[in-house]
């Protein structure tokens, strides 16, 4: 057990397997103890509740999953009152994913969450499915740097920035490094699919984000690249669905790995990856 431990952002993770934002629910705990995982990253939370995008919201492409959820979430008040207490029962390490459509919203979120027991923040500036405060924010380096500076002041907890492959990683990673504790790469990749019967997009919101096996080589690249640009720990995310994928991300320099849409394909995946890593150690 001990040997799977990872130290990162000043936190001890019992193993490198985390579940990615938006891809798991506490009900997985009915299938296996979520406490055996390295940690859990919450669905992205915003200040106000969000309804999300019009359906259909999800579609299976040939080798990936396309989604356009649109950051549906109950908002920070309800999250702290109702959701968080339940999550805290599941795993000691809860990383809260946060997003805002204005800089002030990020500050509010951090101020509200500082007094709680959550472990760290994952700052989602890479959501492909919202018009403001999503992926565009990560492209606006001036605002982003501003937010990062202020969050560094405000935050009592590690700050992990979640980036997209469409971001200028070369520029952003060094820019944010002084104000960050780590990076998660990558969020789902902007993508779309067409229903040829109707000649309409498969998603209600027209475009979405691609995840799953299709994006693994892209995510490996992003981690490899970021690793050369920062000394901070990196969380690899994108297409992890088997033990080899985890080892590949670790090989390119990831300290921790997040498992996302593979949870839909095989809900025991988190457990099996931890078990696989343990056997791999022997």
């Amino acid at each position, binding site marked *: 057990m001990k040997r799977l431990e990872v130290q990162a952002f000043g936190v001890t993770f019992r193993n490198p397997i985390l579940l990615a934002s*938006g*891809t*798991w*629910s506490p*009900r*997985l705990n*009915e*299938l296996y103890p979520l406490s055996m995982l390295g940690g859990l990253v919450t*669905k992205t939370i915003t200040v106000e509740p969000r*309804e*999300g*995008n*019009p*359906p*259909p*919201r*999800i*579609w*299976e492409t040939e*080798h*990936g*999953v396309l*989604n356009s*959820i649109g950051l*549906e979430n109950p908002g920070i008040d309800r999250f702290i009152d109702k959701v968080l207490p339940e999550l805290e029962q599941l795993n000691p390490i809860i990383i809260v994913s946060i997003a805002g459509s204005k800089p002030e919203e990020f500050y509010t979120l951090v101020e509200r969450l500082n007094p709680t027991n959550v472990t760290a923040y994952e700052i989602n500036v890479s959501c492909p499915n919202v018009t403001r405060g999503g992926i565009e924010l990560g492209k606006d380096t001036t605002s982003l740097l501003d937010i990062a500076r202020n969050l560094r002041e405000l935050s009592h907890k590690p700050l992990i920035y979640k980036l997209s492959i469409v971001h200028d990683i070369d520029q952003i990673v060094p820019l944010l490094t002084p104000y960050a504790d780590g990076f998660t790469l990558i969020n789902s990749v902007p993508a779309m699919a067409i229903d040829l019967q109707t000649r309409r997009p498969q998603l209600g919101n027209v475009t979405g984000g691609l995840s*799953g*096996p299709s994006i693994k080589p892209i995510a490996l690249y992003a981690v490899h690249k970021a690793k050369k640009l920062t000394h901070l720990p990196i969380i690899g995310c994108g297409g992890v669905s088997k033990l080899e994928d985890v080892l590949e991300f670790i090989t390119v320099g990831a300290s921790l790995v997040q498992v996302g*849409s593979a*949870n*839909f*394909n*095989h*809900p*025991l995946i988190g457990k099996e990856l931890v078990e696989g890593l343990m056997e791999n150690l022997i």
Partner: protein
Amino acid sequence: MQYVKVKVIKNSKVAAQIFELQVEVDLGHVKPGQFVLLYPKGCLLPRPFSIGDYVDNVLTIFYKVVGKGTRELTKLQPTASIYLLGPLGNGFDIPTHHINVIAGGIGIAPFFLLKRVADDVTLVWGVKTKDEFFGLERFKGWDIHLYTEDGSHGMQGMATDCLNTISKDTILACGPIEMLNQLIDFAISNNRYVQVLVEQRMGCGIGACRGCAIRRRAGGYFHLCEDGPVFDARTIVL
């Protein structure tokens, strides 16, 4: 809720494009209208199916072949196995008095289980053409009204043609979206309690992905896997 690899007992064609799949699994207590997720090989997302019938640890699913996942299901041979998650969803709210069931096509699937718990039922089942009927013998004892669009069996027309003449009792319904939309209109204009089992693409089945949104008439969204798949027809927009 369980996630288990289940053994296939039977998987055979019972009507045009429709298969009956039987697997061995202990699901505990299940309600008509609940569903399970199956994980076909080569698919990244699971596929939802109504619990068709369930007795003595044998789960029956009736599925129509429409795409990649259901095509893959047809390849399952007896003794093969497949992952299953369930039971999921709320199921129908079953009144103790007389019930009207309206089914369109493969929308009949959830009502085989209803037969095990309700006797006083009027079943109206419409299909395009008579090759699409199956399992009618299982409904023996119910008051059965069959429709075909082409008139090849029973009355010519659609299941919803019965709406003018149907009793005032609760309606349970499942079928294609056009049929459900008619029922929603009917329920709203007559302020009737019609329970509809609806479909939506799903990612997880357990409230994680927020993918299964169903438009709420009052604004915002329900989630099929948490709030459905059965809804009061007056409360949703399809």
